[in-house]
């Protein structure tokens, strides 16, 4: 690795960090924190007629009608609701288009429905819509896309748009026209960026992400699910634990209302409520509260409307949230969506709750050597007292209730290893009277068994689950030690939450630099008499000054 860049002057050299999604700084467009598509999106009314009329009125002076009757550019792009929100933001910010909030909502709904992405098209990239932190993307293997696009953007940002080559060319022209320093930047000057971007890249993108696809044609013709009804729900909050229960979805103006009746892993009730708009027939975007805190929801409905999957997160701190999986109640099928804990130690007894649908019928089985006494059961939840015999065979188990089954369960006698998950994450300094709050990073210490090969850290390891741990930080490398990053960059809380230090120059540091740091996060788990540690890497970096819905 090259030299360590330290800059107390405000720039943010970060070339060693790209590869971690959200790690790179990009662009100079200012997005207000309020510009989110789920923020009070419920007044969107009018539908297609109003949308087309608005476009005619506000957009067509620049976007002129082409020979085939389509509007220049507008009619030749497909995007997610978030993508359209960003486009409209750009039109308002850069081109002075006058749109009220309500008109903007109408247009986002209109565009997302008429020129959205099919479920299969968004599936590979949902993490970016869900604003999952610490996702490390797969490199793009096509041509130069990894370096030409994904050094600054996520791969997902590119992959969540559909255009033909000529329209990608126009986007490339906008890039350099709006931000002429791209070809001077550290990530743009090691090649003839403009020459490549304006010739090879649009062709490649037009082939890989074309405007017309069978997937979209099929989805446009497909019936769209009605999501009203009762749902079984389960999910996981990193650092806190699993939760589950039910949700009731009812139709409301321009969308749905939802109420949640949930419990956490210990049985403590969690309640929530909210409203949602469903774009493109399957893109659920909700706002509401959960456990008293304002949250937003980004879920995808399955084609048949039987499932909802996604993530919710705190409105003001989107790195904090949880996964959510929901299954419509009422069918004949039974299913296990989640469990309050994913493991049982041999020779111990634990109270375990299973969440799902159809759980009020059939036998419960943890496999050989584990007995379960049912404490309570309903169609959507079952609580058992499970006991693993001292000689119960360690390893992955299938947990079944009648015909319902989950594979994410393990019995263990002693842990073989502990991994810190995620193993690579970023946090961001913030606060300290500055305008941008800090971005935390959540870690879990996850116990593993070695699996058949008897070696830790291999593919066949059996994931046991998150364990209580103690936490500390160490410098990741020599440069971090020299700069005393472990002292200045922030601290780990008892639940594995890293809280970055305050923003701004720190006169106590060498060069008066800010409190960024490159840290090794060490989680220590006590397993009987054994002490196991795992580690991950955390780069706590500078603020994200621009926070668009899609990074």
């Amino acid at each position, binding site marked *: 690795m*090259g030299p360590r860049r330290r800059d107390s*002057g405000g720039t943010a050299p970060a070339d060693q960090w790209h590869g971690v999604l959200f790690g790179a700084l990009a662009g100079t467009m200012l997005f207000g924190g309020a510009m989110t598509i789920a923020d009070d999106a419920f007044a969107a009314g009018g539908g297609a007629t109003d949308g087309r009329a608005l476009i005619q009125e506000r957009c067509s002076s620049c976007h002129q009608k082409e020979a085939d009757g389509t509007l220049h550019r507008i009619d030749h792009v497909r995007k997610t609701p978030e993508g359209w929100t960003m486009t409209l933001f750009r039109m308002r910010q850069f081109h002075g288009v006058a749109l009220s909030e309500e008109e903007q909502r109408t247009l986002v709904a209109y565009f997302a429905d008429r020129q959205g992405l099919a479920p299969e098209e968004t599936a590979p990239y949902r993490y970016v819509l869900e604003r999952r932190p610490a996702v490390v993307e797969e490199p793009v293997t096509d041509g130069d896309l990894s370096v030409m696009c994904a050094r600054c953007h996520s791969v997902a940002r590119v992959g969540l748009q559909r255009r033909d080559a000529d329209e990608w060319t126009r986007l490339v*022209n906008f890039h350099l026209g709006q931000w002429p320093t791209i070809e*001077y930047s550290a990530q743009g000057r090691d090649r003839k960026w403009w020459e490549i971007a304006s010739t090879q890249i649009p062709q490649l993108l037009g082939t890989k992400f074309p405007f017309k696809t069978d997937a979209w044609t099929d989805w446009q013709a497909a019936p769209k699910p009605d999501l009203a009804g009762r749902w079984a729900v389960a999910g996981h909050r990193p650092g806190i634990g699993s939760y589950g229960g039910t949700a009731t979805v009812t139709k409301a103006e321009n969308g749905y209302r939802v109420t949640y009746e949930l419990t956490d892993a210990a049985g403590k009730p969690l309640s929530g409520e909210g409203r949602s708009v469903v774009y493109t027939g399957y893109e659920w975007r909700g706002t509401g509260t959960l456990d008293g805190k304002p949250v937003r929801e980004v879920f995808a409905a399955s084609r048949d409307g039987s499932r909802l999957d996604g993530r919710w997160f705190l409105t003001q701190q989107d790195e904090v949230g949880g996964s959510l999986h929901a299954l419509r109640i009422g069918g004949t099928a039974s299913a296990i969506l989640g469990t309050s804990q994913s493991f049982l130690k041999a020779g111990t007894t634990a109270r375990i709750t299973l969440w799902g649908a159809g759980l009020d019928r059939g036998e419960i089985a943890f496999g050989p050597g584990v007995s379960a006494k049912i404490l309570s059961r309903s169609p959507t939840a079952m609580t058992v007292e499970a006991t693993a015999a001292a000689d119960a065979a360690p390893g992955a188990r299938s947990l079944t209730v009648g015909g319902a089954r989950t594979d994410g369960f393990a019995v263990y006698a002693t842990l073989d290893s502990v991994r810190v998950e995620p193993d690579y994450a970023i946090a961001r300094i913030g606060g300290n009277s500055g305008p941008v709050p800090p971005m935390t990073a959540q870690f879990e210490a996850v116990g593993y068994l070695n699996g058949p090969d008897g070696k830790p850290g291999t593919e066949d390891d059996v994931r046991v689950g998150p364990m209580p741990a103690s936490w500390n930080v160490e410098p990741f490398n020599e440069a971090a030690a020299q700069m005393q990053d472990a002292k200045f960059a922030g601290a780990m809380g008892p639940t594995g939450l890293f809280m970055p230090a305050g923003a701004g120059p720190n006169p106590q540091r*060498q*060069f008066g630099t800010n409190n960024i740091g490159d840290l090794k996060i060490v989680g220590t788990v006590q397993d009987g008499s054994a002490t196991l540690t795992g580690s991950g890497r955390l780069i706590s970096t500078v603020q994200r000054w621009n926070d668009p819905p899609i990074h």
Partner: protein
Amino acid sequence: MRNRRPIVQTASRLGGLLAALLLAASPAAAKDYLLTGAKPDKLVLVDAAARKVERVLTIPGGGVAPSTIVPSPDGRVAYVINNHLGSVSGVDLDSGKQVFRADFSTTGEPGGDLRVRALFGMDVSPDGKELYVFQSPVRLLPGEYRVEDTRIAVYNTADGVGAKPVRLLPAPRRIAVLAFSKDGGTLWALGWDLYGLDPKTGAVKETHKVLNWTRANHSPPDVLDIWPQFEQAATLSTPYSTARTDLAATDPGAARTGLMTLDLATGRMDMRDFEDTSAVIFSSVISPVNRTEAYSVYTQLSKIDTDGGRLVKRVDLPHTYYAINISSDGKEVYVGGTACDIGVYSTDTLDRVGQVEIAGCPDQGMASLRVIRR
């Protein structure tokens, strides 16, 4: 009428005489002044020896941050890129008046659709008559932008406020520094390579390879230097970094830092490594007294022997500085840019021997740090 002509001629002669006297007298009396910019719209003139801000001048319509600064050869006018890289202003350093202004874009004019930004490179001809500005235009069409070829716009400095280009020269993309040869016959442009341009036509007369420099077992050098700091030694210098492709990336010798120098009097160019990379460097300056001494800056100040290709000494700075320049006697270097102070260091010891604080602590950002003799 008869009587007036001689009077005018006399006045003109007197003026000429006065100017000649002043010019003749100036070398003895002249001293070093530093010229820097401060956000949002200030030019700051500093008496270097006195460690004192002499004057703070406002750039009309300056925008958020002054960028490249080029002093006129007589040291009386500072040309500064401003207005979001969209304009250049010439500000008289004595009166504070804007005596020259060119707004690059045509979007404000009837039928005009070009938005034009100056990307760092700017210099004035040695006779002070022409100002050369590297520009990147984009055409704003209905519903779309179209990137145009980069160019160098040439302005007559005498055209004052509202100046329009008298010539548009074709120019390679990604130029970051423009520097005239001492005789004015060549305009050097540093980008991917170092191009020697004909200032009349823009024709590339010669090219010194920089990124296209092919060296066995070395990656193409990386260069980005937007700080014109060549006036004291008439030598353009810039740091570069390269990687040894025959060594493992973890090998301490795999990353190398060097210095490119171009003698603006002779046109001789040299690129020479001086260390295994151990510090980030943004910009450098050559001593006018000992031309084999270079000084470079970022969070460290380094003294480099360019002839021997070695690092002589390095000291930590209290914070990051982007820009560096040097006194006419070669005894002091000045580190600036970034924050609101200019640090003064002995070239002999690299000890901090003084500093200049700009009142109100405005950020100098990426503004040039120039030395003028007045």
